[in-house]
């Protein structure tokens, strides 16, 4: 009996113990990382060079272990993997850098979880791309390498140019104690703007002009709601779509881009900039949400809600885009790239003609807008990695060669450690180019020129546009687009010509936040203050609290840490 027992126990042990010994990745323990580089027994390529070459190929292969965000649905040619594709081979060939994935995760929440875990358990790969919060956490934990020297020595002229065009903002975003702790991305600033998207076919049908002021929008919304523009005989039309559950009413200094279905433009049309840190007329720092203009804007929205012009279930509804896709709503405020989200709407209603405008204008006839943070992604390198300049070189290479890749063999998302750097005028140049090609002023081949190298997608775009856009070329209504052509390329071109164009064709007052990150007290107190703000404002708009609740909010906000934080931001900005 005891013998059987012994065998039993041994069996369990045999199963369990070997598991403790195996490790299927050899790159896990910190010692292994430097062991890899033991292959390269010559000294640092960087330090032995006389003149640092931004595109210098390493003599001995340098291995870099990274964390990579992947798109699990993206298609690659047979035989290629996330770790082995045209981009990684290009890097190996030109720089002699071998990229290995310590781990991969689907971009979005999954990737964020992995990054958070890596930082919190002090197990960073050699390099990875992270968001602002993660970046600051890693800096504070002392886990990152100072990239100042690597950047100074190895950044290519084009990269420097792009960084400089942000007037120092990008550098500021990554500098701590005078040291550059990450390579920031430089996305096209378009994501920070909110356009008014409206059903132009309804306007035409009801004989209305495009509304350009707050009052005009109110009138149009009223007509939409009362006159059943979709003709289905039901009293179900929604005038203006509101944010969905968990969505934001407006951009704030921590989430300043890609706000969908918010009311930002209504606030800014009242010269209110809630959620942003501003300088008042005396040059003192003040938080936009506690200013009287914000109260005015809230009053207007409250009035609209009461009149039934705004979706009754704003803030509660799970998915606001349903109203857009089903053809139930006529107006919403959102980013330029909504073209990508219209395929369902058009499928359900081929007439759905969503056009975008920089509306509404304020009482002076001017358009005001908040601006998004300059950088949203940060490439970080762990403290003891031997070749920090490798990541700079990889991005140099990307900037230089991106337009040369064949997109059908995989999109740029496959490029490891990519921090997209776009020329700030990329959209404008693209829009102009597209129009030139459509008008016949230029041919697509004209853009196959080194002068246009910084605009990586331009060639592709101009090659697609004549197939995707139907005549008349200057009319961007939905019926003049071919939705099937070129594999759905209409989504991008529509977004550019309809969504982005107003950004570059309108005179605007651009308002930046004084800071886009958290100071010390913000870190500990902000969740509460944010909750107070969200709760109060939403209740005011939806009629669950009187307008004067706003004054109580201001008092509470100041008491619960707002004043302390304001002083802190004042200090931070002075530096």
């Amino acid at each position, binding site marked *: 009996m005891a013998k059987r027992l012994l065998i039993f126990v041994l069996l369990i042990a045999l199963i369990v113990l070997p598991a403790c010994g195996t490790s299927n990745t050899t790159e896990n323990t910190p010692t292994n990382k430097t062991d890899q580089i033991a292959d390269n027994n010559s000294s640092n390529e960087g330090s032995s060079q006389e003149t640092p070459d931004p595109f210098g190929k390493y003599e001995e292969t340098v291995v870099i272990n990274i964390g990579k965000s992947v798109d*699990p649905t993206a298609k690659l040619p047979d035989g290629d993997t996330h770790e082995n594709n045209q981009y990684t081979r290009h890097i190996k060939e030109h720089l002699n850098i071998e990229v290995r994935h310590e781990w991969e995760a689907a971009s*979005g929440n999954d990737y964020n979880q992995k990054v958070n875990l890596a930082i919190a358990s002090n197990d960073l790969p050699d390099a990875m791309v992270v968001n602002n919060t993660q970046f600051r956490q890693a800096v504070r934990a002392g886990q990152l390498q100072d990239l100042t020297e690597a950047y100074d020595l190895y950044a290519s002229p084009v990269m420097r140019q792009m960084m400089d065009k942000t007037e120092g903002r990008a550098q500021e975003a990554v500098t701590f104690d005078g040291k550059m702790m990450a390579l920031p991305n430089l996305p096209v600033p378009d994501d920070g703007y909110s356009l008014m998207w409206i059903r132009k076919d309804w306007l035409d049908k009801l004989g209305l002009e495009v509304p350009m002021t707050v009052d005009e929008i109110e009138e149009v919304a009223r007509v939409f709601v009362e006159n059943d523009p979709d003709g289905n005989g039901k009293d179900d039309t929604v005038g203006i779509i509101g944010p969905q559950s968990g969505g934001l009413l407006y951009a704030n200094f921590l989430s300043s881009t890609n706000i969908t279905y918010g009311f930002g433009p209504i606030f800014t049309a009242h010269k209110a900039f809630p959620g942003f840190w501003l300088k008042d007329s005396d040059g003192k720092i003040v938080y936009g949400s506690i200013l009287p203009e914000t109260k005015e804007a809230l009053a207007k929205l409250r009035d609209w809600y009461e009149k039934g012009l705004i979706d009754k279930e704003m803030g509660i509804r799970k998915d606001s885009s349903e109203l857009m896709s089903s053809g139930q709503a006529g107006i919403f405020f959102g980013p330029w*790239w909504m073209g990508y989200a219209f395929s369902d709407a058009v499928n*359900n209603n081929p007439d759905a003609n969503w056009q975008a405008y920089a509306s509404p204008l304020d009482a002076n006839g001017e358009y005001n807008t908040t601006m998004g943070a300059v950088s949203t992604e940060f490439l970080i390198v762990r403290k003891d990695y031997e070749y920090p300049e490798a990541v700079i070189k990889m991005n140099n290479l990307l900037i230089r060669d991106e337009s040369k890749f064949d997109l059908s063999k995989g999109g740029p*998302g496959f490029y490891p450690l990519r921090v997209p750097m776009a020329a700030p005028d990329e959209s404008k140049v693209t829009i102009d180019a597209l129009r030139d090609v459509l008008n016949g002023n230029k041919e697509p081949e004209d853009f196959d020129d080194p002068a246009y190298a910084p605009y990586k997608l331009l060639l592709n775009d101009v090659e697609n546009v004549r197939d995707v856009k139907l005549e008349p070329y200057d009319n961007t209504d939905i019926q003049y687009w071919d939705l099937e052509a070129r594999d759905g390329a209409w989504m991008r071109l529509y977004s550019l010509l309809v969504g982005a164009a107003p950004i570059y064709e309108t005179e605007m007052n651009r308002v930046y936040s004084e800071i886009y990150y958290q100071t010390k007290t913000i870190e500990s107190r902000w969740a509460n203050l944010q909750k107070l703000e969200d709760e109060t404002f939403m209740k005011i708009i939806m009629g669950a609290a009187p307008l004067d609740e706003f004054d109580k909010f201001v008092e509470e906000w100041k008491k619960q840490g707002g004043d302390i934080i304001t002083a802190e931001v004042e200090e931070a900005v002075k530096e």
Partner: protein
Amino acid sequence: MVRDTTLSSRIADIIIIIILLIGALSCILPIWYTLCVSLSEKSAAAAGMVKLWPIGFNFNSYEQIIGDRKFFNSFWTSVKRVILAGGINFIVTVLMAYPLSKEKKEFPLRNVFMWILIFCMLFNGGLIPWYITVRSYGLINSIWALVLAGGLPIFNVILVVNYFRNLPKELEEAALIDGAGPWYILFKIFVPLAIPVLATVTLFTIVNHWNEFFHGLVLMAKEERYPLQTYIQQLVVVIDTSAMTEDQYKRISELSNQTLNAAKVFIAMIPVLIIYPFLQRYFIHGITLGSVKE
């Protein structure tokens, strides 16, 4: 069993059945709805137009999920995981439950061991220490991480302990008189009698491990090693709109793909639903206690 056939009893029967049917109906409607969404046209689902019938009937979402070789990889990983976990859990649970079901006089330290379990059931150090620990054992990216890192299924053990405690003492005494040792009593007497509760905890284990996706995400480094739920849930990703790139704009059109979301639910449900009726008979019919002479 003698049937009670009075009128009031009949009426009671009918009322009971009606109540149960209403309950069942309320449960099946959301499932039916989800099934309809999964078989619908993407745009219709995105517009919230699907109610009780599929609109634009198609199997696209299912094809998209199943058509990928990666799907079968992760499916197989989950199967392996469930089998390993089911086996290990079963054995360990049964082994633990027996001594813990003893009285204090037979096993003096029994209460101590029991309370340690309760304590461990409630207290834990949080995600980070757990992750660091698992990593230090070198289990990252191994199937054993999925099987073992969840720890001992304490709740299951307690259920079985409770069941064992309620078994008639005479059974054991009879066996002891015949000279049986604890191992014999446990495996030859208790276990066969405890089939209902063992089927129950086996079901819990299977369901748990099959549906679990978070461990799969944090403990596996690459997609090839993901179990099924982890693989599926990443297909319907929520994009972090604070930092979007060109490829991600394209994925926006996937964002509203509720049909995919719904299909994923069903694919995940199916294997467990197959196992369930199989296990069901063990805890509905139970076994006769006729083997015991009172």
